[in-house]
């Protein structure tokens, strides 16, 4: 950790700002996970951390280590790309399983299936 003191001021300020902003966004997302009432609304909260939060924290990391090691660093981009590519899959899976359960339990406020003759919902999301 001690080599972090070598970071010059002009780099330290944007790194800190990005890191703080990213953490605040992720924190708000987690608060949302706690506060929002229904399962479907809670699906929205973690996307905050998964989009803006990840991007800002990874940018801060890229900038910090690029300045410290005096070379270009790009492989954090892969973290951003893979998190953005994989979260939709998880969210769709969660959303569809919740919808399936709620339809079987016939909860209020959940849209019915448009083609009732099929026993299971057509879960063909590409």
């Amino acid at each position: 950790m001690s080599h972090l003191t070598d970071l010059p001021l002009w780099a330290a300020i944007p790194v800190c700002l990005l890191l703080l902003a990213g953490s605040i966004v992720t924190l708000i997302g987690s608060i949302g996970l706690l506060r929002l009432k229904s399962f479907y609304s809670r699906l929205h909260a973690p996307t905050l951390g998964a989009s803006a939060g990840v991007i800002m924290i990874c940018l801060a990391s890229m900038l910090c280590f690029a300045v410290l090691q005096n070379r270009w660093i790009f492989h954090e981009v892969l973290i951003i790309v893979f998190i953005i590519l994989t979260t939709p899959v998880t969210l769709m899976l969660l959303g569809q399983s919740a919808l399936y359960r709620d339809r079987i339990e016939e909860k209020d406020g959940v849209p019915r299936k448009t083609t009732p003759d099929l026993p299971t919902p057509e879960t063909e999301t590409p």
Partner: protein
Amino acid sequence: MRYWFPYPLLSFALMVFWLLINQSLSIAQILLGAALGISHAWLMVNLRPSKTHTKKAWLVARLAGQVTVDVARSNLAVMRAILRSKRRPVRSGFIAIDITLRDENSIALLACILTATPGTAWIEFDSQTRVLLLHVLDIENGPTWADLIRTHYEAPLKELFE
């Protein structure tokens, strides 16, 4: 040429990925990455994905810009909604939209865009009735959500791929 290199863009992306995780641009790594990229493209042939081509590649940039602006804006909106939720509970709900897109890949792209936007969650797409079920966090302005998706995303995707 197409036989040996079935998915040139995929091969290239895999090579770039290989170089990035190895953090090196040496000849050996480039050759290894190229070999990996090309051989994995052959594996992809067995999956038989439907191919999509576009002749208006410059429209991609416009769509990407639009998506970036919308994602940033809805990030702020969702944050505001969460922080205010103690005083004023969020009114969320489902909306159903008829989708006229035919191409499988452009529907997949639409799914990625809508899921990346924090205010909207893709719940279900019925491939027979072509109805898309979305969950929207802040439903206050209900009809504008459907309009926004139609004009901002569906129309450009249609122009791009169909």
